[in-house]
């Protein structure tokens, strides 16, 4: 029981300290998991993080489930995951509640009109950064362009693209066009 509460608390701290998720999370995970509790070594933690990236869902959540499971089985996985999302639930609900009351003020509208411009730039930068890792060759470039164009011009669920591209990845690899 104690270990479950410790997992919840440790991952709640990871959730609070992480702005934006992704790589920003690694030093905080190191401190909580490796230094403070000794639940995993640095190498194991990197393994968990790597698997967290190549399984579906939010990376921080996947990593939490993994560490929790390895420390205390299925209940551990669940408690660590609940811990990592708990701060978001509290903080976002508070902020969203406040913002809903002020959303119609002219100053708030102006602020958000400008913030949306900033969001465009942040998404653009994220795409550029992801692109470098995700598009290593011509076949991957073709997949990127097809997904981009079809999802801009057609009203298709992203799920369709995800399933087709997973199959395409396997077929293209078997055809030996990967890396060319």
């Amino acid at each position, binding site marked *: 029981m104690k270990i479950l509460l410790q997992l919840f608390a440790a991952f709640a701290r990871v959730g609070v300290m992480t702005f934006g998720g992704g790589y920003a999370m690694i030093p905080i995970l190191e401190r909580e998991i490796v230094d403070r509790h000794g639940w995993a070594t640095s190498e194991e933690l990197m393994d968990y993080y790597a698997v967290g990236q190549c399984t579906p869902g939010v990376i921080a959540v996947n990593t939490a489930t993994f560490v929790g499971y390895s420390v205390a089985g299925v209940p551990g996985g669940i408690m660590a995951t609940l811990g*990592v999302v708990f701060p*978001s639930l509290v903080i976002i609900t508070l902020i969203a509640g406040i913002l809903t009351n002020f959303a119609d003020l002219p100053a708030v509208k102006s602020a958000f009109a*400008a913030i949306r411009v*900033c969001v*465009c730039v942040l998404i653009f930068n994220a*795409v550029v950064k*992801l692109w470098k890792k995700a598009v290593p060759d011509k076949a991957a470039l073709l997949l990127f362009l097809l997904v981009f164009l079809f999802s801009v011009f057609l009203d298709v669920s992203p799920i369709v693209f995800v399933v087709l*591209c*997973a199959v395409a990845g396997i077929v293209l690899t078997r055809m030996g066009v990967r890396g060319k």
Partner: protein
Amino acid sequence: MMLYLRLFWEFFKTGLFSVGGGMATLPFLYDMSAKTGWFSTAQLADMIAVSESTPGPIGVNMATYVGFSTAGVLGAVIATLGLITPSIVVILLIARVLHAFRQNRYVDAAFYGLRPCSVGLIAAAGLLVVKIALFNVELFHSTGAFLDLLRPKALLLAALLLVLTNAVKATKKLHPIIFILSSAVLGVLFSF
């Protein structure tokens, strides 16, 4: 009750099919906005900004926000649980075979296709934000004047932010929250 089930199901699908973390949930949220009408594209852009500027993983923050604005506090909890359920199930299933999974050539090959897919989907969703943030399509449709299509202040700010986040050494490593807050101040000062 139906709304809660629907929220859970929509976010369950998002959790199961979004690959690559962070922004990867974005295309699913746009799809959700178009299909359910729970929130508009503009609202979604605002939610992204709040999710980037508050603690916690972006994907989780966005689920909580969408859930809250759709169905209150319980909605926030249910959307978030929907998002994390597939992660928990998948991870618990493969935890025992971690090494075999990572080295499996089919998994590796599938991800070779999934990575460009994820970037393509995010880029397409980003284009929708560009459309509402930098352009004024409604005004253009009503007046027909090409210059009405552009939002000059927004375009200037976008250019400035692009330079600051990519080309200026002193500012490009700064946390996004600084750019979001500065934009908010400029937006109020210059009445965007």
